[in-house]
């Protein structure tokens, strides 16, 4: 299983791969991935690669990813090329109209790629007082809601409970569930 996670520095995307890693390890699977630290973390485009299984290189090659998790719709479009034929993208969107772009539609159908959107900002604004930092777990919930990514919502909930700081556990679980309910299938 190969995941690519993209977003903007400051959105807390590193936590997402930590959750995936925790789940894989508790299943006894091997993991390897690559993160961005440093300059790009300051509000720039960031990307995490994460591979579960028998791999040695920490990077996902273009056209190899099973799942693209995008915290930002623009970053999603810039990184769709990582997806393999038949891959799935989970995209947090603030303006879902972008998906109607004809070139994008053509590329998606040519490559058999399915896009699942979640209005993460709207949901967090409505349900959690605009604490956008919970986007990183909301999007994992959305992935489970879309029925892709090879992890279950229960596994995500359990992992988040272990990894999140004690006083934010409840909020994190809530965000996971909001994502689960809010994803387009």
């Amino acid at each position, binding site marked *: 299983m190969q995941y690519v996670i993209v977003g*903007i*520095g*400051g959105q807390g995307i590193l936590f997402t*791969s*930590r959750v995936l*890693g*925790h789940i894989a*390890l508790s299943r006894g699977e*091997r*993991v*390897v*991935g*690559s*993160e*961005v*630290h*440093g*300059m*790009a*973390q*300051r*509000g*720039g*485009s960031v990307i995490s690669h*994460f591979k579960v299984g028998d*791999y*040695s*290189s*920490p*990077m*996902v*090659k*273009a*056209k*190899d990813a099973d799942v693209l998790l995008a915290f930002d719709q*623009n*970053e999603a*479009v*810039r990184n*769709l*090329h990582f997806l393999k034929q038949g891959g799935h993208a989970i995209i947090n969107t*603030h303006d879902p109209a*972008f998906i109607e*772009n004809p*070139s*994008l539609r*053509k*590329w998606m159908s*040519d490559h058999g790629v399915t896009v699942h959107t979640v209005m993460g*900002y709207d949901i967090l604004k409505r349900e959690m007082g*605009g604490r*956008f930092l919970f986007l990183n777990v909301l999007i994992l919930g959305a992935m489970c809601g879309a029925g892709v990514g090879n992890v279950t919502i229960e596994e995500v909930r359990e992992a988040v409970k272990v990894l999140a700081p004690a006083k934010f556990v409840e909020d994190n679980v809530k965000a996971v569930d909001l994502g689960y309910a809010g994803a387009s299938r």
Partner: protein
Amino acid sequence: MSNKAILLGNEAIARGIVEAGCEVAAAYPGTPSSEILPSIAKWADDLGTRTIVEWGANEKVAFEMAAAASFAGKRSCAVMKQVGLNVAADPFMSVSHFDIKGGFLLVAADDPGPHSSQTEQDSRFFAMFAKIPCFDPATAVEAKEMVFDAYDLSERHKIVTMLRPGVRVDHCRQDVELKDVIEISRPASFEKDPRRWVCLPASVRVNHPQLNAKREAIREEFETRFSRYNYEVPAKKKARLGVIAGGVSFSIVMDILKAWGADDISVLKIGTPHPLPLKMVEDFISRHDNVVVLEETYPVIEMQLNDRTKIKGRWNGWVPGAGELLPELIEEILCRVLGKEVPEGASAELKKAAEDLNITPRPPMLCPGCPHRASFFSIRQTLPKAIYPSDIGCYTLGVNQGMVDAVVDMGASITLASGLFMAYKADGKEQPIVATIGDSTFFHMGLPGLASAVYNKHIFVLVILDNSLTAMTGGQSHPGIGDKLRKGETGRRVDLEGAVKGCGVNWVKTTEAYDISTSRTLVKEAWEHAKAHEEPAVVIFRHPCMLLRQKQAVIPVTVDPEKCIGCKFCINFFNCPGLVFDEKSKKAYIDERFCVKCGVCINVCPHGAILATEGEEA
């Protein structure tokens, strides 16, 4: 005890350092190496060792501290990024000639790409320059293993040993085996011996030939005794191609060959690129007609070969001479050398979609609420005609505000200001100059430049952007903060104003960075003073970094569309992720996804269109 955990490559390296019994560790932060030293402290605490773990003010300081601990018989390490080794090059070259005592590991983290550096230099080249051994890990697991061997080698041959992880090893996450500490009971004992510890020219005449001999002895070991790092993965059938690969390039090649199901390509992995196990490599080359060398970023393996005629590599352009060897690029190179069809690159449709939707890569930006943004705004409004040499830190991103005219390396803002002053002085011209430098960078390498400017009577304003943190590299402490690396271990804060005065500066004043009006007054006064008294004047802009999440006034703002005339002044001069220009309505607006309600922009709009909304919201 044996168990597994998913660790960052740097955490794995740190774990290895503690397990190997290192008792003194020093570093200066720098991406991609920064997490190593704090992780050493964490593991040492977890495992109950007494390892001393400290930040030096710069890499030369850190290297020398660790070196001396080795002289006293302790296992020690110095950790830095690749350009940090430029700063530590002086002691590095000297100490490489020494017969050191305790194992001394130098971790120099490289950044092919580069992702967060001013060069793409290859530290393995530095190892070759200093004639010391170098380990080049392909994975986090291997990096941790190499630490033990590096210490062992270092002690047996009494030589500095380098571990050179690249950014993809430092910042990979992988499941890693955790072990117990090797118990080493070795009290500090510095034995006086000037011939050994004083780098007189006379000693070099003995030490240099001895260093050559050590290198050849180590090469012999690398040929025969290091098959866990240097080995061949043979092809199942007759090989059409031989690949020689080091570092993460090896891991990438292996994943590609597996995905291809290739059975006619053999790979020689080189984990010890210097000194190169030449016999092993030459034997591999002799058995293949077609050989490609993949290594980052300089041709270090390639250059050590006596005969490159069969090699496809950097010397003949098969491998690009700059940039990171990403998986797509490695696949392309493999296809080319095999005469296979190269997989098609970026899709035209996706490019078109990105164009239609106006999507470009998002460059890094100062965080919303960052005090540097306000500081740059104040300086530019006060002395718009000035030249602005700057330095290395988050504030280099002030380039987006037109406030960073030249950057060379850490500390150069001050010396560039001096040089620019001298250039205009030669013409008898007055030129306003405002240099900006961060607090950590000032202690790293700002002090000698400032003393020199005072001594030579250079006229400029120096602004120290004091956010009480080494922010760019993730928030480490430094002498101006006082907290030490370990939580609860307090050091003593070196007073910044005092340090500036100690360099001979007569005029130094401090301002709250968010307070644009006071800041402007002080910058103006500083420039007047510098001119009148022929000396540098210093303004310290102070406000805690947003990463520190200190409590501050929450001031929600909004843009009044009636008052906004769409001049983009706020966008061009303030450049905040929370302030966006709407191309349809031709007005600015607040993007609440990013705004942190610092309220500074209220004082930025010349038309008074940015307003506090507190009253309305209540």
